[in-house]
């Protein structure tokens, strides 16, 4: 069989594969993509600054913001669902949410 003949005979199989892969994409359940973020406490409750851990520029920007706030006296703490919120001194790109708390003062 010529190469062209082989290609033509393969067409139904190729289209079949395409159809089935399209079906897979269409039927795939929609997953909620949660971006990690810095939560900066302010007068609105807090502001959310999301970052993409897979994007080096986004990570660098989040790290720069973290450093900017900690230099201003903010304390950073990781938010965990178990209610333990450890304070962190270095930016943690694996944390889901990092809470930034303004400097404390006596009341």
């Amino acid at each position, binding site marked *: 069989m010529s190469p062209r003949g082989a290609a033509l005979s393969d067409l139904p199989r190729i289209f079949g594969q395409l159809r089935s892969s399209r079906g897979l994409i269409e039927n795939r359940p929609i997953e909620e993509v949660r971006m990690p973020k810095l*939560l900066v*406490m*302010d*007068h*609105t*409750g*807090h502001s959310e600054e999301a970052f993409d851990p897979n994007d080096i520029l986004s990570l660098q920007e989040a790290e720069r913001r973290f450093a900017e706030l900690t230099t201003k*006296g903010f*304390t950073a*703490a990781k*938010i965990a*669902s*178990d*209610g*333990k*919120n*450890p*304070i962190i001194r270095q930016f943690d790109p694996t944390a889901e949410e990092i*809470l930034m*708390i*303004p*400097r*404390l*003062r*006596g*009341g």
Partner: protein
Amino acid sequence: VSDHLILLGLCVSILGSCSVFVLTARLRVHGSHWDALAGARDAANERAIALLKTCLTPEQREDYEKHQFFDVIGSDTGRLYRIKYGTQSNIIELDKRRRRRICGWCFLPEGGLAAGDVMLAQKIALENNELETLAIANRL
């Protein structure tokens, strides 16, 4: 003379009406401004409380839902503190049996934050950096 007096009276009454109108309009603008501020403050409070609840342990959340306070254990001394709803003078130190008040403490984050945010900052500070925090706090 009487015509002039009548004219003068008319002018005065027109001016008076105008100033009352302007004053009322201004008060209305100020009123809506204050309403907007109050709305923003309420929204901030709700966001802050929602965030606080996600950061509490199950026991602390239960206490907060029932009594509007929760207890934390100091990271350095193991002493017990009760954080009540509020932004100032809202922490009391209790004895181990949670019955007797030992003293009160007051510290808060800068920036005029909502109560939920203040309480969360106080919890994290006492659970991680107790002595450093108490060094800047006021004892009551």
